[in-house]
């Protein structure tokens, strides 16, 4: 089994609608039942991010995301799947449920 990160991409900082939330719940339940579920969570908008750098002795805190992009990550799933074909299916279902694009990326 391998683990994959499914990052939910969006240009709109708005929250998921009720319909989207309901579809996400159904998807999550199904993933748990099928043994794919590891973790899921939504994120606050990139404006709430702080960059921390303590490579040189004292930590330095910087307000905002490390890179400004039109599209950003608004949530994520970590899933378990035997191979990419299975993970692609989960990502396809997840994208439909949350009504957003998903970037699928394997963990090492």
């Amino acid at each position, binding site marked *: 089994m391998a683990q994959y990160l499914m990052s939910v991409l969006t240009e709109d900082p708005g929250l998921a609608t009720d319909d989207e939330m309901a579809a996400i719940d159904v998807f999550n339940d199904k993933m748990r039942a099928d043994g794919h579920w590891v973790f899921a969570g939504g994120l606050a908008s990139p404006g709430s991010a702080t960059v921390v750098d303590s490579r040189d002795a004292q930590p330095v805190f910087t307000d905002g995301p490390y890179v400004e992009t039109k599209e950003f990550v608004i949530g994520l799933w970590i899933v378990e799947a035997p*191979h990419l*074909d299975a993970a692609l299916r989960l990502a396809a279902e997840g994208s439909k449920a949350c009504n957003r694009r998903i970037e699928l990326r*394997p963990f*090492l």
Partner: protein
Amino acid sequence: MTGLDEVITQVHREEWARVVATLARRLGDLDIAEEMAAEAFATAVERWPADGVPPNPGAWLTTTAHRKAVDRLRREVKREDKHREALMLADTPQPLGAIDDDRLRLVFTCCHPALAMEARIALTLRMVGGLTVPEIARAFLVEEAAMSRRITRAKEKIKAARIPYGVPFRDDLPARVTGVLTVLYLIFNEGYLSSTPGKDPVRGDLTAEAVRLTRLVHALLPADGEVTGLLALMLLTDARRTARVSATGELVSLDEQDRGGWDGTLIAEGHALVRERLAAGEAPGRYQILAAINAVHTDTRDIRDTDWSQIVALYDQLVRLDPSPIVRLNRAIAVAELDGPQVALAEVEGLPLSAYHAFHATRAELLRRMGRSAEAREAYARAIELSGNSGETAYLIRRRDQLAG
């Protein structure tokens, strides 16, 4: 070429995919499989002249390659245990569908939709076709180092993302087969109308490779109508390859071709495949329709006997499946023969294809037939500007220069 060289070349052509595919399944690693297969063939070149060709060359090669892989694994295990883990993927997927052939797994892995199209083409030619990296680089006019990186990157993604070495899920199968056929058709088309300036206008090495790969996929999926359709389409197109270029390297249009120069054997085979699909009585997909159109084209010894109404009817069927502007452009070319250039031009004008050379070439021909020379000249100029194929450019320049007034 000596007799033995020929034998080795033929064995390479016939057995390469099987050796790579078998090893890839046993080892769970495409990279090692490819490398060891290449080493096994190098050993054959060294040993067969003295030892003679083994009775079953394919089995000999697979065994030799496998032994080399095991030796190498042992060496690497001693060096680093982690390596072994990477090489022996414990959960190499089991066959997911009904078809169980390692070469089919290899084809589906190389043509996986998670890979970029150009990577799929390069990997398929290398892993399934057995072409060397320099050969593939030359075919696509890419620097050898760049082509090598492209293939390496694709193999790394296969490993890191765990692209399975297997036949797809049953309900993904039709889409995945379509993906494989797209790769094969792109290879064929690059051979049949090279888009690379400075290359030969028609390249038999690439078309032959595409036909060979499609024959293999057809042998593995004989009941798939679209695979059969694509093979028929390639055969009926490739049959006209030599008649399609003049002695001076100019493309020869269908109406000017010497039909005696067509390859009757390929045409007969293509027609048989088209008939087989018609007899199946299933709704045809795009490749089967295109094959049927080409069957009509190759059915007569004289272009004046061509059954254009049937060709237009087939294009109507294709438009219903795929209403894209390029299909409508090709339909219009057939309409011109049936209903005249005015009707065809009305259908061509307004298609959003102003960046496509064939759109301007078609307009030019229609305008020429209608005697609108000035507009035709402009359209030829635009087509010449956009075409990257030397034979086609030569043809268009001659046609333009033949314009009256």
